[in-house]
């Protein structure tokens, strides 16, 4: 059906913005075509296979862990009387606010050979050296996977919990009446029905994992992301680095396609407003194990690291830090504000274009603008420099040509490049949130205003935008928080005297003195909590 057969401006702007967001990536891939074959061959013969294996292993471990953490906790919270169920319901979301690199640092401190836990064990058992006992090595591939999983599992938990809660109670009752007990019903009906939600959330986590830089680097785990960095900076070969980045991009595309497929399946999921009360009552041992599992996730994913940060902040606070903190904090807020606003507005444009226009391929701008999510920040930063560097030169030449003073590096040398990079990176989040918001609006509401003699712009202004307000706010907040946490892109792109909270913390971490940056980390976490609280409140109002 069609409301807007010909809206060239709308179509044009949608396509233009979407392509602009992707232009740096195109530049990157194009540059990859001129990669140095010798270097690539050398890498391929030496370390690249290991990097690829590490990347796959890391992704595999993280996915297994988040599914284990997320699905089990979601099932316990929705289907059983696990202890503290009402509180767990939202507490399990909190780890999302914790950046993986911060938690990695804290746990290394805690569980490393030199850390208090192992020291304590050595004191008790009178062990002398590492040969005397075995202890989980946190600075390993699996350790990195565990750290990433601890802060990313809430994605799975959130989507799967919703899937469980929205399942039609009639279906559960039907299964019970057909002779299945509560446990069988869960495994034969509820769980299979939640499969699309599991697949979507797991692929989101996978993309975040592929993009992670700081955690794996801190843990000395070499993945494709670090290989890109190495090749660029150690070998000094940007195009070969871009070639490896393109390899990574292929992985990401595979993940992306499977995610979209899962989403297509999810549309068959019924959304029932009727919530199912818990159907399985845990007995003594089960209750203890289940509670320990859920509360363990909350403690290790959020409460413990948060407590340690607070303790650090308390012990190491000094006034001098405060100025750095203030300036980097303000920079963070400013950058995140722009990124969130631009990404959300663009998402609104793309989503409504797809929804209301019948121009061929109108869904494409939405899709391609979301690709950036999968591109690691480092790669993105390189792409920005490669794109805006030459553009800056043209601008300066033109300015002089017309008799103005050369403006300098207005694009690549300012916060513009950072904002652009982060918008590219996080558009997908805004797109997804607003797109699912628009799906809640019945198709008939698109057509009703026209039948009442009201034109398209008025319809959007009076119907779609008000109805999408809450999705917009959520999208804005989610992007805002992600932009606050984002590190590698900002690290490469920041201009003079410009630090954000995340780069500030990163410097402290790479200097092995997070203590001094604890307040900054707490601020990031605190901001991260805002959307979680709002999302939770919104849900309650429903």
């Amino acid at each position, binding site marked *: 059906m069609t409301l807007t057969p010909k809206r060239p401006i709308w179509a044009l702007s949608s396509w233009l913005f979407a392509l602009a967001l992707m232009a740096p990536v195109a530049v990157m891939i194009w540059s990859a075509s001129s990669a140095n074959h010798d270097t690539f061959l050398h890498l391929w013969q030496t370390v690249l296979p290991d990097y690829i294996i590490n990347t796959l292993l890391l992704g595999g471990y993280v996915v297994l862990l988040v599914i284990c953490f997320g699905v089990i906790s979601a099932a316990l919270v929705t289907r059983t009387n696990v202890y503290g169920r009402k509180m767990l319901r939202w507490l399990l979301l909190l780890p999302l606010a914790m950046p993986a690199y911060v938690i990695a640092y804290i746990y290394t401190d805690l569980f490393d050979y030199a850390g208090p836990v192992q020291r304590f064990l050595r004191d008790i058992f009178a062990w002398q050296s590492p040969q005397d006992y075995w202890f989980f090595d946190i600075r390993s591939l699996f350790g990195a996977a565990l750290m990433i999983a601890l802060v990313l599992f809430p994605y799975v938990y959130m989507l799967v919990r919703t899937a469980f809660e929205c399942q039609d109670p009639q279906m559960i009752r039907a299964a019970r009446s057909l002779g299945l007990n509560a446990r069988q019903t869960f495994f034969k009906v509820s769980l299979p029905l939640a499969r699309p939600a599991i697949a979507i959330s797991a692929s989101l986590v996978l993309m975040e994992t592929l993009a992670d830089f700081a955690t794996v680097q801190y843990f000395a785990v070499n993945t494709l992301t670090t290989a890109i960095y190495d090749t660029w900076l150690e070998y000094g070969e940007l195009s070969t680095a871009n070639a490896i980045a393109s390899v990574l991009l292929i992985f990401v595309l595979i993940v992306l396609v499977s995610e979209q497929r899962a989403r297509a399946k999810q549309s068959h999921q019924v959304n029932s407003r009727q919530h199912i009360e818990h159907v399985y009552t845990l007995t003594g041992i089960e209750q203890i194990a289940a509670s320990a599992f859920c509360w363990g996730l909350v403690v290790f994913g959020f409460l413990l690291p948060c407590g340690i940060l607070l303790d650090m902040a308390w012990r190491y606070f000094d006034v001098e830090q405060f100025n750095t903190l203030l300036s980097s904090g303000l920079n963070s807020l400013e950058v995140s504000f722009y990124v969130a606003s631009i990404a959300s507005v663009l998402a609104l444009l793309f989503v409504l274009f797809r929804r209301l226009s019948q121009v061929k391929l109108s869904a494409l701008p939405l899709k391609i603008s979301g690709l950036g999510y999968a591109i690691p920040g480092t790669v993105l930063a390189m792409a920005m420099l490669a794109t805006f560097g030459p553009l800056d030169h043209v601008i300066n030449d033109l300015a002089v040509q017309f008799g103005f003073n050369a403006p300098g590096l207005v694009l690549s040398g300012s916060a513009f490049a950072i904002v652009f990079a982060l918008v590219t990176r996080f558009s997908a989040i805004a797109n997804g949130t607003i797109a699912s918001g628009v799906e809640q609006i019945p198709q008939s509401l698109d057509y009703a205003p*026209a*039948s009442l003699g009201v034109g398209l712009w008025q319809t959007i202004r009076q119907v779609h935008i008000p109805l999408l307000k809450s999705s917009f706010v959520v999208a804005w907040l989610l992007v805002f928080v992600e932009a606050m946490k984002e590190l590698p892109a900002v690290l490469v792109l920041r201009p003079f005297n410009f630090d954000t909270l995340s780069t500030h913390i990163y410097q402290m971490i790479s200097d092995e003195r997070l203590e001094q940056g604890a307040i900054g980390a707490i601020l990031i976490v605190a901001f991260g909590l805002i959307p979680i609280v709002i999302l939770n409140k919104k849900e309650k109002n429903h």
Partner: protein
Amino acid sequence: MKPILTIKNLSVLLQDKLILQDVELSLAEGDILGLVGPSGCGKTTLLNTIAGFVEQSRGEICIDDIHIGAGSHVPPERRQVGVIFQDYALFPHKTVGQNIAFGIQKLKKSEQDYRVAELLKLLALTELSERFPHQLSGGQQQRVAIARALAVRPKLLLLDEPFSNIDARLRDELMIELRSLLKSFNMSAIFVTHNKDEVFTFADKIALLHQGSIIQTGAPKAVFEQPASWQVADFLQIGSWLKVKSVGNSLFTALGEVNCEQLTDTPDSSIELLIKPKYLKLIEAEANCIVKHITFTEQGYHYILASLDKHCALSFERLSFYSEQLLAVGEKVAIHIIAHQYQIFVRE
């Protein structure tokens, strides 16, 4: 009377599939047309094409003085066609009053208030004007949707399965109410349904859509008495079908021989005789049917009969028959066809 809507030669192509083909239709001012047909026949597409949500690929539509050709699309907001959507499409973030005023925002505030108040009163919604749609019952929501559509004073109102979400007990009452309301406005309307009873209650005129084409239009009574084709009669469930074998002017059925003038060249295998229940009667003779099912209705017992002889070419499985007399399931009875103007159809 001048037609408010004329459709000529209309074809619609959606995703390379011909959904509507050479549709011809006209509607006089103030008339209510019931558009019926099996699901997937293109009813909703026709409605959407008239409303302007779907562009036609051939043919023309005239709504009063607005002319729409295949190359000259007029956007829906300029067609003055009101639509009542199946889910009512009320704006969830606006109150009942605001919903009704949505299409008349360009009018002066006082004029808006006057119209809204008038409609609220007419549709017995005055008490609810400050409520939000989710606080209303299905029937109330529908009344709001109607009020909202009427507020802009459209030339034509389109209703997509307006009674499908309404409790069966209230349905008749609502249909009668709505009909008199539309009549009081002299509002022309087209409504889509797959329920023939709704047509007989609600419409002045019926149009049957089959596989993208209109196969018959006319007053409900005329169509019911003179269905133009096998599909029409079958869809409207006018009667039961009996297989026949022709010998000269005579037709043999499982219930005996009948005389029929109106014969065709078509082979017997594709001809069926339409038998309305009122032309069947119970007689004292050798049994030819067996009772398969009994339904109690206000008009007496409704029986489904099957022929006793199961293996003959003319045997049947479903014959509808009403009687005051109580029979038992499995009882063998003799049924006779009362002589009347027989109607035979070619089954396609």
